[in-house]
């Protein structure tokens, strides 16, 4: 329950912080931290324009997208405190729910019949496929490390005994941050602020969405960032008491937002053809973590 409230709370201003950081690094003052959220609220109050080519799928997709994300958020724990949904192997369902949302968004993009959106859909399908193994191997490694296969069990059993395990935590954070960037189609894989449709991934997929639906999709990005931030925070808060863990989570989320902001300000987008290599690095880092855990447990051979 705590984690759910925290994720919603953080989702309100996460993107605001990112935008603010981007403004600051480029020497501007920037809008208020709440501005992205106000934009979404404004969208929620607007009417919509639908393409004549689209079918019901196009209207259904944003709803299933946000619903799948909400159920996934319910699974996110707060350190050793379980989320509302918690069972053995919940991270598998977590990943597959997100995949469900992605499936719907991809076919919604194809529903418009626009070649731009088809292009974005094709890239989204491929890049998210490439990022998936990293998440599973990461969670598999920590399942091996702690002997548990649920989010809650993993974070509960996580203890930092040696310096070596701190390194694993650091690597895991790196992998999760990049996964969050890929999943949300941010730099350096995709540039949401570009002006040319040909070079986008996620933004071009939602060219034809408007009004309430667009608001839902935009909010989903905020929620996703807050969700991944919450998972990253769980790596560090363990079973600390609430009065310590809640501020710590907020600090970590803040830190995450600042990192995202700085990365977006100082990196350029990759050439499309280089993205697969970059994303596959994640899997290799995840495998590195796996071998690290094997060594730590002395189960190597």
């Amino acid at each position: 329950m705590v984690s759910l409230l925290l994720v919603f709370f953080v989702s309100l201003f996460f993107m605001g912080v990112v935008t603010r950081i981007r403004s600051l690094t480029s020497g501007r003052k920037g809008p208020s931290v709440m501005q992205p959220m106000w934009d979404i609220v404004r969208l929620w109050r607007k009417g919509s324009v639908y393409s004549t080519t689209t079918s019901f799928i196009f209207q259904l997709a944003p709803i299933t997208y946000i619903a799948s994300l909400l159920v996934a958020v319910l699974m996110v724990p707060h350190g050793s405190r379980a989320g509302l949904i918690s069972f053995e192997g919940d991270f598998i369902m977590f990943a597959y729910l997100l995949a469900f949302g992605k499936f719907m968004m991809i076919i919604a993009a194809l529903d418009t019949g626009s070649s731009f959106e088809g292009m974005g859909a094709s890239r989204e399908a491929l890049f998210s496929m490439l990022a998936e193994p990293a998440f599973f191997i990461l969670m598999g490694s920590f399942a091996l490390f702690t002997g548990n296969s649920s989010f809650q069990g993993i974070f509960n059993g996580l203890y930092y005994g040696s310096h070596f395990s701190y390194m694993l935590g650091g690597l895991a954070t790196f992998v999760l941050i990049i996964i969050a960037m890929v999943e949300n189609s941010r730099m350096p894989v995709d540039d949401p602020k570009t002006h040319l449709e040909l070079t986008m991934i996620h933004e071009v997929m939602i060219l034809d969405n408007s009004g309430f639906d667009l608001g839902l999709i935009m909010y989903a990005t905020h929620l996703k960032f807050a969700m991944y931030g919450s998972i990253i925070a769980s790596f560090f808060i363990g079973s600390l008491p609430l009065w310590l863990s809640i501020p710590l989570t907020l600090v970590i989320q803040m830190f995450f937002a600042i990192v995202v902001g700085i990365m977006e300000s100082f990196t350029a987008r990759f050439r499309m053809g280089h993205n697969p290599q970059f994303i596959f690095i994640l899997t290799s880092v995840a495998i590195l973590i796996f071998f690290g855990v094997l060594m730590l447990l002395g189960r190597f051979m």
Partner: protein
Amino acid sequence: MGKTLFELINLLALVAIVLLPLVRKGKALFVIIIFLQLFLGSLLALGVIVGDSIEFFYRGTAVTSVVPIRIDGLSAWFILVIGLTFFTGIWYGMHYLKRYTGERANLTLHYLSFVLVYTALIDICAVQNSFVFLVVWEIMALGTFVMVILDNHKSKTLKAGINYLIQSHIGILLLTLAFIWVKLETGSYDFNAITGFTSSLSASAGLFLFTILFMGFAIKAGFVPFHTWLPHAHPAAPAHVSGIMSGGIIKLGIYGILRMLMLVRIDMVMVGQLLLVVSVITGVYGVMLAIIQHDLKSLLAYHSIENIGIIGIGIAIGCLGIGHENPLLMATGFAGALLHTLNHSLFKSLLFYSAGNIYLARHTMNIDSLGGLLKEMPRNGYLFLIGSLAICGLPPFNGFVSEFLIYKGIISGIITSNSMSVLVILFALLGLVIIGGLALICFTKAFGIMFLGKPRGRPEPVTEDEGKSYPLILTALLILLIGLFPLLLGPTLVKVTALFGTARGVAEPYGLREAVNSSMIIGWYSLGFILLTVVIFLLRRELVAHRIVATEETWGCGYQGDNSRMSYTASSFVRTYRKLFSPLLNIHSSREGASGLYPVSMGKETYPGDKVERWLIDKPLNLSKKLLERFSFLQNGNIQAYILYGLVFITMVILLPTIYALAASFIKILNQL
């Protein structure tokens, strides 16, 4: 009771063989007989699942010796799964076959093959005498061949059918070799002899025997590299046969592998690791090739290979569970594999029937020339969508439940097993995740390009026939039912899975029931997910009820003309993927470039090929062809020469023993000297 049912089913097949060709109203008789058989078969299987297994013996003949009939949970499970696919397949086929009304002889043969294949299937699951098993297996293979070549006036269909026939006979050859080996050493055709025989063999010899058996069944199931018949046979067959084959008949290979695993006594850890590697390769290879297929039915055929890979991963995890004596691994692995067998038969047959409806409407299976079908055949479209989501293993559909079980087995395998197994299981985890991701690409492509967007070209409008979609709706409902309430199947799965333990003298392994049932909880969360979606949907409807809603053309970055030819095609959708994986794929492309001062036309065509087929089938075949061509002078069409060959042959037959006897006596004399 069981014996009567079993005999009745076989008797009905005999009746059908005699009566079907004679009766004028063949269709009605066929429907009565096959549905009666299906009913009796399901009754037989349900009886076993609810009660005890059946065992009785026929005295047999001098050649076959005693024929034991044993129907346990495993047989019953497969009889039910395949029977279900037969039921929907024949129901759908009744509509699909309306086009063939004129061809009476062809149809009668087609009907008869259904009856024979179904009867053979029951017998395959029941007979445990290797000699009779091979006979019924052969009947099944031949019957399937007849089923596939319904369109026998097309040379492509015949070629695919013969390809299937040859390859399945290679499988039969391998099985025969293995069974003869057992018979020679033990003197018994009874399957139970395998148990004693393998425990007396050395470890490597036992593994060798299992490998031969595995290869024999793997050809039927479609494990890579024995899959090459599958992508040819499925597109050639009519839609209902493709559905039955993919959903039902190839599962017999899985049954065979599971049955042998139950019987053999060899190092299960070794078997598990080998099987895991083969299955992961099968799964990933299948889906990798599925993505680049432009023919919908070949795409689905390659997906069958992928799903066989997933089932194989489950079986392998179960074997590792037996080997490491870990009930959790065993339960999740085998239960996942068994459930995925059922699930795959449901969604794959749904997809094939739906593809059949598209074929009837548009007379093409080329994904690139279809588009915007959802508006014309909405019912078929949404059914295809359900099948696509289920085959990608996404919640809340049934594919997710079985994949979840296998994932859980993999994760607990990582946690509990040691050194070597951990690395192999990590490979399986990587493979399964990649399979999932690639399946997503594949089915967003198939559904998105065919059903969404704008129609390509100017096709004539179609009207949807309601009757054709009833069997599809039934299948879709079952898919959703298993996805939401998997607990319904829990006890059955536990019962069947426990057989692998009891076969090894372990009473129901501790924690088996617990392991299967605790995984089934995901059904409730899937239900919650659906409810949440409905709530948000209603909420949205309330909120936007009074807003202005306008319709416009799709935003084309300023371009306003007709853009139906500009929309994304399947080839362009998978282009990035194709470039990325090109070293592993085998894509022939022919390019007709613009040339000269006034270029008229240009174009490019790509054909997806199969690397394994090229190296394993085509190349050796060409080599042997070259070798045999050297002897082509013998076939010169000259009758005198042929008479000469005959004479030479007869002389040889007569002379050879004489020469042999002479030589022998000569050597004898030499020896005596």
